[in-house]
């Protein structure tokens, strides 16, 4: 596809903005990785950037430049052409992070190989990655195969589908433009006070209570972590990974204190 995939729009929003907002709900700081000639590009210029400081072709330049900019932190690396990527998929990845490995990555649904561009890259990988490139390597995927990554199975096999052709773009729009699901949420006790309301009906693209909590915790700044809560769907206790349906009533249950 002869277009900048980060600038493709879904729901009237560029994929770069969607990826940026998605990542912002899960990590402390988000940067857009750019080549030196992209710093004025209107799709990217509004965001904090890390400009390539390492001479290399393709994503390995971005990953190495991020390590160079902030050597002590681990990086959640996300490609800007993954329109189906969800809060649930990122949450799953982050919760299963293996900080002792060079990276934690999903296994591709197509070929079983690591997906380097929706993965957590640990700072410990920086030096070996530099050596790999110095030795003529240029493919982050091959790097992860050679040096080992903690691999996870995709819960939603479509989450990492990327968009390469106009037909795939049309398909993604058709899928994503379906009206987001309407849910009813009720809040009690501390969470009612923090949300500033006792109930609301909202539209969400979260498909499970876990994803929904992530979204609402970011919106309202809930102080309770998910581990401290239970959740009810349609007035019955529920799994966090249950598939939500249109019209479901969801209640997050803070630590109880009856009696």
């Amino acid at each position: 596809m002869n277009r900048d995939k980060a600038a493709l729009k879904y729901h009237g929003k560029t994929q770069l903005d969607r990826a940026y907002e998605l990542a912002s709900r899960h990590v402390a700081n988000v940067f857009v990785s750019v080549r030196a000639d992209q710093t004025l590009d209107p799709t990217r210029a509004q965001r904090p950037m890390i400009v390539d400081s390492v001479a290399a072709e393709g994503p390995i330049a971005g990953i190495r430049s991020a390590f160079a900019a902030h050597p002590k932190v681990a990086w959640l690396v996300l490609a800007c052409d993954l329109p189906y990527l969800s809060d649930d998929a990122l949450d799953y990845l982050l919760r299963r992070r293996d900080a002792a490995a060079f990276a934690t990555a999903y296994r591709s649904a197509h070929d079983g190989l690591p997906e380097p561009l929706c993965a957590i890259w640990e700072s410990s990988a920086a030096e070996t990655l530099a050596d790999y490139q110095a030795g003529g390597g240029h493919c982050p995927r091959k790097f992860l195969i050679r040096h080992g990554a903690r691999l996870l199975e995709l819960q939603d096999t479509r989450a990492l589908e990327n968009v390469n052709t106009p037909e795939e773009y049309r398909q993604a729009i058709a899928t994503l433009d379906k009206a987001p699901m309407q849910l009813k949420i009720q809040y009690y006790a501390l969470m009612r006070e923090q949300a500033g309301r006792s109930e609301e009906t909202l539209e969400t693209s979260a498909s499970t209570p876990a994803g929904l909590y992530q979204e609402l915790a970011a919106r309202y700044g809930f102080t309770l972590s998910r581990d401290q809560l239970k959740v009810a769907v349609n007035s019955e206790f529920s799994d966090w990974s249950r598939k939500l349906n249109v019209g479901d009533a969801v209640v997050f249950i803070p630590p109880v204190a009856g009696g």
Partner: protein
Amino acid sequence: MHFRFTERAIDTESARRELQTSSAGGYVSFEGWVRDLNEGQEVTRLEYEAFQELAVKEGDRIVAEARRRFPVKLALCIHRVGSLELGDMAVWVGVSSVHRGEAFDACRFIIDEVKHRVPIWKKEHYRSGDSGWVNCERCAAAPQHSHMEPEHAEPELAERHHDRVAVSNPK
């Protein structure tokens, strides 16, 4: 229905009558009261709030479990919601049975399970002017703390009433 809420003072006399049956030789009840001190803070009043739809289901399940585990005749739990003053009764549990032993056991089981499982929350108002949701505010500062077993993690939080057990017609 073996579990219910009330927004008014719990009428223990009429609740007790619901448990009377000629086959029962013993009756045990428990009352939980609003106490003036918790965790070193002077409490002036409490507010109870519940997710009633689910709470009634879970409360009914607890009483049904008690009746399966212990050979009791009848059992009932009533929980207050709304604003309560010091000394007010927040919860009442009553059990009748052929002999006293199973009535004590079932009563204890019901109140313990209700405290841990039923979606009810209480906010304490302190003399200092401060207030806080019990089991929530301190937890928030220590997220590794799970509310699944609050009595193990913070024993002081589990009990905040003068607990009184009344027995009549023991055999």
